[in-house]
């Protein structure tokens, strides 16, 4: 049972990291142009 003492905080912490990562992607505008992002991945010409 003592395993719960650290397993639960770890689980919550990992979940929290996921949440923070999602909120960051949202805030930095990564969902603004989903169509364009799909194409940009295929663009292999170097840009200035």
């Amino acid at each position, binding site marked *: *049972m003592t395993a*719960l003492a650290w397993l*639960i905080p770890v*689980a*919550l912490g990992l*979940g*929290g990291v*996921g*949440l923070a990562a*999602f*909120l960051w992607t*949202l*805030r*930095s*505008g990564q969902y*603004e*142009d*989903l*169509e*364009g992002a*799909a*194409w*940009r991945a*295929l*663009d292999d*010409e170097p*840009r*200035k």
Partner: protein
Amino acid sequence: MADALRVSPATPVPAPARISSPASARVMTLMVENMNCGNCIRKVETALSAVPQVESARANLSARRVSVVIHPQAKVNSEDLIERLQAVGFTSRELPPEGASSEPADRDSDLVNRLAVAGFASANIMLLSVAVWAGHGEMPGSLQTLMHWLSAAIAVPAVAYSGVPFFSSAYGALKNRRVNMDVPITLGVTLATAMSIYQTIVQSEQVYFDAAITLLFFLLIGRVLDQRMRREATSAAENLLGLVSPATTIIHPDGVSERIATREVRPGMALLIAAGERVPVDARLSRGLAEMDESLITGETHPRKVKTGDGLYAGTINLSGPIEAVATACEDNTLLAEITRLMHTAEQARGKYVRLADRAARLYAPAVHILGLLTFLGWLYAGYTWEPALTAAIAVLIITCPCALALAVPAVQVAAIGRLFKHGIIVKAPDGLERLSEVDTIILDKTGTLTLGEPQLEDPDAVDPAALVKAAGLAANSRHPYSRAIVRASKERGVTVLPVSGVDEIAGSGLRAIIGGVEVKLGSAAFCGIDRADEGRPALWLRSGTDAPVSFRFDDPLRTDARETIAKLTRLGYQIELLSGDRSAIVEAAAKQSGIATWQAELKPDAKAARIEALKASGRHVLMVGDGLNDAPALAAGHASIAPSTATDISQTASDVIFQGAKLGPLVEILAVSKASHAAAIQNFVIAIGYNIIFVPLAMIGVVTPLIAAVAMSVSSITVTANAVWLGHKNLKDMS
């Protein structure tokens, strides 16, 4: 112009760009009409970045917009950038700074933030709850209390944050002495949370944190989808206004011409409109003849001939040489602005549509609260203390938690939308299918909907090949739709088209060139010196020297299965009408050919919308099917609307459903699936309510533990989902 574009340091960079820029840099947003592939992004960005004063350019393919950051001191205006894009083949317009505002997107992501937090919290609380339920009776009391405290630690801040949109809306309603749907939601969520905290403190067995936060999570999903839909509608309206070019050439009384911002044009000013340019404001042609592409306003593919003194509408394209005109109506008074306004108004009306789930919730929420209250009073009356009474009351609230109800409609719609998607049909509005299932009257547009929308050379095999070669050579120099039809027909017949040089285009008449010393003319009968009355059918004549003239006739053929589809829809009991902006003779022929008894011709966009309003007022549920910009108000006014994928962006945005392909048959499929999904949604409600009828009495007498409640909730949710999945596969009658 430049001043209006200057972005103050406090103004956030427009959302699509997200470019970090020095506070003093200028940001300009252009709408690029034909940016629709991955390669286009690179072409657009490269072309703009090549301008020395441009610091960076970032294209947004989804929004068809590009944000350009310009060096603070640079003297570059939008005209230069638009020209630069024109050179690489893109048509663009500048969006007014207020049109590129980032506000709606911010509000949207605020809701998504709350949704993400609610999702995180409900998933973790569910995990803890499952552990408690699974260990029921075996788990030591201390561990159970720990789990409850952990749940509380996650749930309380999450509910406080994620519930704000509901709480504030409920508060606003109560302050104005009204009750909206958010009031019972707020009551249920706060009551369940508060009671759970109390239960945790007194170390009771039952807490309901999971129910409170999951409820918020489901409700927020609905809010986010709703918000996104509205944002799309707004951006469509902005793009529509972007069609008006922001700069216009005016001619001063002394003959000097000058480019000024379109918003500074006043009635009475003399305008110069170049070939291929859109008319900036409503105007009157002051000299000569012109041919105008008015498909934007009337939906008609055949250009209109305009004489001196005739009106020109903002947004139409000048197909002839440069023309001079006098402005008659500007900015908010133009026909184009009027169309935008009509669309907004119509959309607002549709926004008032109450979805099936909401209608159910309206009946459901009070019933749930009355049941909960009765339970509480019943227990008190039976001599118990307030604690078990309130616990039983909350058990009733939780058992009736609208989880199955929240799933009943969305699950069906996801299955139905997936089924349609396989047939190349895209459902855009979440509540579109529901509205489609109620339709009893169908209004069709002619050009581009009942027909394919492009004039085609009638019977090209009957035309003498030598004449066709000559005509195509002349026509290759013109952007007139008939000329393009001739060139297309020649290519289809395998005739090599060699453009003739030195062709004169005479506005409103035709084309003329000297080939081998002989004058060749392609144009109207009068232009070619032929004494024949126009038979009401569009035609061009070719006259080469003194040879006998050759005629080319055009029509806009119906979609191949139009007649069959109309017959099928009539058999299914739909009343069908044809409304067109086109000429009477042509509309009548199309109506007869496709088997539609009721038709009206020569209608302006507002007249179409008015006809729909009249039908709506007589209690009918109207489906509008149309493609042109002129159909946009009608599409927005209809109870439901469908557009082909060839439709203009605006029309597609105003529609609930978009279908692909050259056939009209998808209409039948869409209507059949919408009816079937409506029936499935009703079945789901019956299932969900059936579970409640079994479990609510048990909860009222206090024998339902959280475990039983959880099992009941899951089983009803799974049944409801299974019923929806079945819809995706079963055969629908009346569809073959």
